[in-house]
């Protein structure tokens, strides 16, 4: 096996040949799929555990506390302890709820992030799904997630859950528009929705630098709208503790509550990953035009590290929002989307088309 940290295409192909050499072609396909599935499951679990820990630490530092410190070195094992506790907790179901939908909702919220994460390009060749509609696929699939939240709120038979679900439904459905429009602004430049091509088109510079002013406006709209779409603070009024206890997942406990939590953090990661891929070149190292020595020096750092580095920076930026800005009211939230972000992003697409037609971008 020829393993290279810079290009996974050969490595994946050699695994495939190795599998087909041992098993019959049909069985090899099944085993290959199973391996990919297990990898993603492990990745998502580790992601959830580490993101919760990081979030708690970041929040603590913003509030001049230390955060979890007792379990493990600097509290690193805290989330593992938490998840073990959640697994052993009794999953309560309220008496007059629709039990079937109540149980199903926790799984539906997990469907969308699992389907999307396969389309994320982690490094060259490390890419499970590469459709020619890549970006459209991501936005299409992530629109399913809201169903789970609505069902959870309704089937709990609790007024706080219902109000929380209504709020978050209205929020997700409206902010989806701005997210998609801001992504389309960059698609005007790339001329392709395929994620591998979007990454390849940034080999001489990332779109945030090459795309002139409209790209920067699009990025700001993207980061605001996607923070709102994932129900994160300062837009977390769907689960505003002080008024709605915990919003749509008030009645959930034990492992089902963990599912909601996990879905939220995986969505959080996906936003950062999509933002990094479209605006910051994904796994593409920082290249400036055709300056050979600089580009070669940057290529020394493996693409995986570039990708996760960009994702971590974006994640930190969004956490920074959450722990800095006060929470919005529902009418302020909807005004922000429909009266400001949506018109701005439509005008921004026109501006970007003008830039692309006149070749004002790099």
């Amino acid at each position, binding site marked *: 096996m020829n393993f290279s940290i810079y290009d996974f295409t050969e490595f994946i192909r050699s695994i495939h040949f190795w599998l087909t050499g041992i098993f019959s072609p049909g069985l090899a396909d099944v085993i290959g799929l199973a391996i990919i599935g297990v990898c993603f499951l492990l990745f998502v679990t580790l992601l959830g555990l580490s993101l919760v820990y990081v979030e708690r630490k970041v929040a603590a530092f913003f509030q001049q506390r230390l955060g979890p410190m007792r379990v493990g070195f600097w509290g690193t094992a805290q989330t593992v302890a938490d998840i073990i506790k959640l697994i052993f907790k009794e999953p309560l179901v309220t008496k007059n709820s629709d039990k079937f939908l109540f149980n199903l909702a926790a799984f539906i919220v997990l469907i969308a992030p699992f389907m999307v994460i396969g389309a994320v390009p982690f490094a060259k060749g490390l890419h499970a799904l590469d*459709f020619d509609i890549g970006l459209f696929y991501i936005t*299409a699939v992530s629109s399913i997630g*809201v169903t789970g939240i*609505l069902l959870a709120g309704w089937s709990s038979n609790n007024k706080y859950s219902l109000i929380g679900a209504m709020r978050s439904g209205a929020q997700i459905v409206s902010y989806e528009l701005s997210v998609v429009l801001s992504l389309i602004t960059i698609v005007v430049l790339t001329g392709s929705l395929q994620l591998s091509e979007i990454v390849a088109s940034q080999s001489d510079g990332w779109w945030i630098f090459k795309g002139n002013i409209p790209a920067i406006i699009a990025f700001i709209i993207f980061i605001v709208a996607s923070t709102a779409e994932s129900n994160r603070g300062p837009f977390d009024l769907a689960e505003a503790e002080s008024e709605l206890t915990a919003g749509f997942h008030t009645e959930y406990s034990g492992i089902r509550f963990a599912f909601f939590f996990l879905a939220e953090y995986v969505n959080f990661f996906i936003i950062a990953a999509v933002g990094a891929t479209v605006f910051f070149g994904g796994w593409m190292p920082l290249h400036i035009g055709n300056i050979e020595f600089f580009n070669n020096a940057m290529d020394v750092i493996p693409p995986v590290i570039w990708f996760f580095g960009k994702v971590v920076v974006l994640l930190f930026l969004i956490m920074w929002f959450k722990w800095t800005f006060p929470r919005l009211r529902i009418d302020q939230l909807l005004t922000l989307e429909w009266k400001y972000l949506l018109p701005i992003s439509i005008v921004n697409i026109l501006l970007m088309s003008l830039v692309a037609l006149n070749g004002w971008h790099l």
Partner: protein
Amino acid sequence: MELIIFYILVAGILISSVLTVTSRRILRAAVYLLFMLLGSAGLFFMLNFYFLAAVQLTVYAGGIIVLIIFSVMLTSQVNEKLEAAGIKKSLFSLIAVAAGTVVCISAILNYNFPAVSSAENDSSMRTIGLQLLSYKENGYALPFEVISILLLASMVGAIIIAKRDVSK
């Protein structure tokens, strides 16, 4: 391998579509409908019609179903059940369903599907985009524009209906 996935998807579609019409809880019916639509999106993915599959997911699973769930949420309670259909109603719907099945199956059996080469069947995003805005032969620029005017008109209509009470 493909065949197994196909049968799983088809079984899912059939079971959930039957449950959609037989369920007496309206929100459960909406959820079964969601599974039916997801299954058919899966079929489109198997046929390599990625664009159609993604449209199915955004428009139906992410749009229509969310609208249905929203309206059900605002109008009904968790414990509400629809009353079971009477014998007369079930009999007539059974006849209608049987007639529909016969018509569909006979139409499918009598039509000999011509084999289409993959070149003719080009459904890549680029081709769809160019075709949609082309005004030459086989272009869809006119229907595209007409539909956008229809959409604008219905949006204006929706706003006027929603606003009517305020002006009084």
